[in-house]
């Protein structure tokens, strides 16, 4: 299976810079996600990998070979489109057989690929239906089967689950991942849903405003965000700003221990579920919502609000004062230079 290398790619549309200096590499057989808010350039980057767009600068390498000027039909890639983009006049079978037929794969081989894929996707009974007659989830599967029928080394997914309802989304998500493990293709998966990215990926590339702002394993992205934007975009985050003196930052809730001796103005971040009841900090409960496995608590003090997620068997009343602590190694210092882009 191929690996993918993107080097210093820039994409301009007229005066507008949709991607700037994007570099990333994916090793063979890995599943990576491009995560970011709507409009940050995810689809543009995917289109550059597929060959629908040509970058204004930089290069794309598949298996170490430059493909920047290669046409889409000559690349070892297949795309799963956000709108599925099925051929509306072809039935399910012919949609899936389209790629092999265009590539002049032998008839028997095409037939066996199509029937294997259709049964793998649970679409056997629908093979003569037109796409219009299928549900969203079924269309999604046809789109996936159609892409896989050309046996691509690199599969590109553009928010494939965004048109499905929540329950189906979880199911198709794990189906995609196990198919990928089984067939071994390299996958580039685009999403704006951080939960999807964390759950599926070997590596996450977080984009904002056309740049990669952080990349890494899901755990590292989640627990060690580098900037305020990353902290905010991935999950819920509590942020405090101020100087750090002898390993602690003074917050309205009390002294928060930080793994760093002295720093002038800095910003720190910790996750709601890192907190535990009992400790040097305290605040007044302004709301507490029971979520089954956990209790979602908002504490206020001096006009500031933070969020805690503690075990669901605890019981807290609104108005009650609660003391809590955050382990030192769960508090990370972040750069706070991209405040302006945080809500982009």
């Amino acid at each position, binding site marked *: 299976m191929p690996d993918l290398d993107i080097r210093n790619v820039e994409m301009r549309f007229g005066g507008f810079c949709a991607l700037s200096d994007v570099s990333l590499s994916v090793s063979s057989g890995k599943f990576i996600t491009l995560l970011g808010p709507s409009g940050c350039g995810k689809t543009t980057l995917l289109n550059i990998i597929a060959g629908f767009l040509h970058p204004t600068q930089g290069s794309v390498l598949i298996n170490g070979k430059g493909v920047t000027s290669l046409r*889409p039909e000559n690349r070892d890639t297949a795309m799963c489109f956000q709108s599925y983009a099925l*051929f509306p006049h072809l039935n399910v079978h012919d949609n899936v057989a*389209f790629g092999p037929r265009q590539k002049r794969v032998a008839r028997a081989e095409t037939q066996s690929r199509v029937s294997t894929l259709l049964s793998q996707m649970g679409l056997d009974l629908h093979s003569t239906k037109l796409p219009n007659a299928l549900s969203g989830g079924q269309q999604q599967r046809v789109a996936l089967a159609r892409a896989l029928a050309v046996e691509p080394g690199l599969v590109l997914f553009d928010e494939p689950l965004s*048109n499905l309802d929540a329950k189906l989304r979880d199911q198709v998500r794990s189906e995609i991942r196990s198919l990928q493990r089984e067939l071994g293709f390299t996958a580039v998966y685009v999403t704006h849903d951080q939960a999807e990215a964390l759950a599926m990926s070997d590596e996450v590339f977080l984009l904002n405003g056309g740049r990669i702002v952080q990349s890494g394993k899901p755990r590292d992205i989640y627990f060690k965000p580098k900037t305020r934007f990353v902290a905010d975009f991935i999950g819920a985050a509590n942020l405090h700003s101020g100087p750090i003196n002898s390993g602690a930052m003074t917050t309205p809730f009390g002294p928060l221990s930080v793994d760093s001796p002295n720093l002038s103005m800095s910003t720190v971040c910790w996750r709601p579920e890192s907190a535990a009841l009992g400790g040097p900090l305290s605040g007044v409960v302004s709301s507490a919502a029971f979520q089954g496995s956990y209790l979602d608590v908002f504490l206020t003090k001096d006009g500031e609000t933070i969020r805690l997620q503690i075990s669901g068997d605890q019981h807290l009343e609104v108005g009650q004062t609660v003391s809590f602590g955050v382990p030192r190694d769960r508090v990370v210092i972040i750069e706070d230079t991209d405040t302006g882009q945080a809500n982009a």
Partner: protein
Amino acid sequence: MMSLPRLNTILATCLITTLVLWIVIPFAMALMWSMVDPGTSWSYPDILPPALSFERWRIMWETSSLKTAMFNSYSLAPVAGMIAIILGAPTAYAFGRLTFPGKGIAQILMLTPIVLPGFVTAVFFASILVSLGFHSRYFAILLGHVVLFMPYAVRILSVSFSQVNNEVVNAARDLGASPFGVFRAAYWPAIKPGLFAAYLIVFILSIEEFALAFVIGSPTFTTVPTILYSYLGYDFIRPNAAVVAIVLVVPNVLLLIVLERLMQSANPANVSGKG
């Protein structure tokens, strides 16, 4: 407040009345006039003709130039439709799929022939054709019809082209389709209804076109509308005019029904593939 069934009844009555006034009565009158027996005249106070026969139809068919006129009209229209489509498609593609500076203005300019009165275009068009040395009236009128009606074809086709889904085009390319394969998989299904609709519109407009055919063709080259005019003007013969009117109208109504079907199947929901 009025109950809904009652309101529906009133609306239905209005609709039927309008249909009767606009379509059924004129058409029935034309039909009756065309079948007035030449031997017995139909005059006040008779509400219906005293005797009906197909005599007028026979006379018109055998003695007038209706046959030639029909041949002219029905050989002009299909060719005009074909040429308008072939010449209009590239422009429509540009309007529907590309962005370029001045596109908005170009689209408006393209439509201006539609709002000019037919005779204005006809008179000046005729003089251009003469100075260009066009001596065949058939080709002059054909060219005129193509020029006059291509805007309609371009308009319809550019909507069709804009409905071609970009992602479907990309999907076809991605899966290895040749340019022709991409056309067949992504373009053709989306533009097919529009192509037929545009063809039929030009066909119908060409069949009905009077001003240009009259200015260029008269007196020797007749089409169905110009022959109709000749029965309304100097020597007014109502039954003969009625025969020609029916010959002119009935095929067009049938074509219009086909057209309506095509326009319905040109529904964008059928080509988007989104669910």
